[in-house]
């Protein structure tokens, strides 16, 4: 085991895969000597040179379109887009092309690309650099979507994403410095498998990305109230590990679905539906399912206002306590 930060884990996964396969190529803006907007890629151009680390003009739509075309010809591009907010610019090549090309060609073509971009607030970057836009993409068949929280998961999922024959959106949170002991050997975390980050018996908190840490914090506090909370980290949003969700709900009978993205139309709705459409899980519920999400407003710049936007451990704890008060 070796201690790695979230950004180091992602970098290591990319570098090991680039070492293994020269067709794995990093493409993006300022990913060379600058090391990427969030310093995920320092040292990579020095190690691999411009054949495997390709710097581009500021042209998000074209960069992703180019990656789609290159992937059709055998490249395994990893595209870095500076901020998840700019995914709007990349939406046409992702949604209309990457997600459709295998299908429209009846399996004759593959688009094995990885689209990396960070989501979320807490950086003081105001409304256009802080969104959580995953739900714009979860409704698109043909895409796979992962959103790891821990360095260990980030490394293993990045490797799986690179080796996957289909387009994978790899969303990152901005706690790039969060550290953890990570296995040193080559390992994969399968796409589509959730992970119980904390075992519990009274309530399940289902989440992904940065709010996994918020959930764990809430679970620790709830322990003082003698409430045992399970934290289920989805890790993958599409395909979704329905089995793990249902199993945990049947065990605890109480559910909080948590994410930083706004509540209205958010991915939490999909998880709630998954639960209530299953007779056994539905029957096991001892309280209504609760969503704890980001507020329905653009991110304010003001620090005090910004801090109130994402779900806090306090809001989670209050929701859980309310369930027990009945």
């Amino acid at each position, binding site marked *: 085991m070796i201690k790695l930060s979230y950004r180091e884990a992602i970098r290591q996964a990319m570098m090991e895969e680039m070492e293994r396969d020269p067709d794995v*190529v990093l493409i993006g803006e300022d990913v060379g000597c600058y090391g990427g907007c969030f310093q995920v890629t320092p040292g990579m151009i020095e190690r691999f040179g411009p*054949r495997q680390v*390709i710097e*581009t*003009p500021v*042209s998000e*739509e*074209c*960069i*992703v*379109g*180019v*990656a*789609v*075309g*290159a*992937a*059709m*010809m*055998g*490249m395994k591009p990893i595209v870095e887009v500076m901020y998840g907010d700019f995914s709007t610019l990349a939406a*046409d*090549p992702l949604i*209309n*092309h990457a997600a459709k*090309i*295998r*299908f*429209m*060609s*009846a*399996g*004759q*073509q*593959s688009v094995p690309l990885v689209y990396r971009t960070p989501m979320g607030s807490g950086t003081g970057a105001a409304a256009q650099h802080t969104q959580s836009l995953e739900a714009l993409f979860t409704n698109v*068949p*043909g895409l*796979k979507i992962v959103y790891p929280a821990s360095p260990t998961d980030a490394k293993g999922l990045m*490797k*799986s994403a*690179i*080796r*996957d*024959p*289909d387009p994978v959106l790899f969303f990152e949170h901005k706690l790039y410095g969060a550290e953890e002991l990570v296995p040193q050997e080559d390992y*994969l975390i*399968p*796409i589509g498998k959730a992970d119980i980050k904390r075992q519990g018996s009274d309530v399940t908190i289902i989440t992904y990305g940065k709010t996994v840490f918020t959930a764990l914090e809430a679970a620790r506090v709830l322990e003082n109230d003698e409430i045992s909370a399970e934290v289920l980290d989805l890790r993958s949003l599409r395909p979704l590990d329905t089995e793990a969700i249902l199993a945990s709900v049947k065990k605890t009978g109480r559910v909080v679905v948590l994410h930083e993205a706004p509540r209205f139309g958010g991915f939490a709705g999909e998880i709630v539906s998954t639960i209530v459409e299953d007779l056994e899980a539905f029957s096991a519920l001892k309280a209504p399912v609760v969503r704890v999400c980001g507020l329905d407003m653009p991110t304010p710049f003001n620090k005090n206002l910004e801090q109130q936007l994402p779900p806090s451990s306090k809001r989670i704890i209050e929701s859980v306590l309310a369930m027990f008060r009945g």
Partner: protein
Amino acid sequence: MAFEFSRTQGREILSLMLRSRFLEEKVEALFASHAMHGTTHLAVGQEAVHAGVSPALDPDDWIVTTHRCHGHTLAKGASEEAMLAEFYGLSQGLAQGLGGSMHMIDLEHHNAGSSAVVGSGVPIATGMALQLKRKASPNLVVAFFGDGASSRGAVHEAMNMASVMNLPVLFLCEHNLYGMSTCARDMVSVESIASRGPGYGIESLMVDGNDVEIVYSAVQEAARYIREQKRPYLLEVRTYRFSGHSKNDKRTYRTRKEEQEWLSRDPIEALKKKLISRGHLIEEEYNLMEDSIRSRIDEIADRLGDQHEELDLAQAAAYVYSPEVAE
């Protein structure tokens, strides 16, 4: 001296143009009679571009086409049989009936398929060229787009990127004067789209797109330039679509007089006249050529029209994701 086809080549190209024309006329009739569903975008009148581009390339060069892809697909090597099956939505079609009229694909002949989002195929072609360059391939990619698509940001981004990365892309602007109903005169800021080439540091040229010999030799020159200089090239070919934009277009945006003027410059008639004047073809042979192509297309269309082999939903669903997973 102006480029001229040899006797054999001229007759082959004429035959290809007729195949494209008659295939599209057949398709138009089949849509009109509701034998085919959906919509279709014909390029009747643009056959000099179809027959002038792909035959001038190396067979291993790639093309990425558009929603108006029939002529290019045929010219790159697909059979009428496989194309008509796709029009009908049959499982023996080019994309097993999952793509249809706007999404013809033929990897065997290095046709990577088409994007029906106008202009979006251009970055994809540019990315294919990036991988060809990395692999030190001698081949190039043709990115077809129209005058309408020339206004897309992605097209401008791709030209800039291909230029700074020195990519083997032939940006082929098939300028047929209209983006759906709007005239390029009102929508494109310059007289000639080729004139934008220098703005990206790209060599460019505009030629008559209704003269197949001119298109063919311009593409050969452009391809030679791309291979030797290892640089992209922008070629604009000026043509006219006799057909409407799509199935239900009444062509209210243009005059019958304008259409008549262009009909008098029919690219097939033009080549036919040249070949006859050179003694490479006689009228009787031409008539035979027409008859045999028409009857062959009729025969295929009739036969496929009676067939019903289609994918079922489970077979279609199996193409959403690869069955393989990382290990």
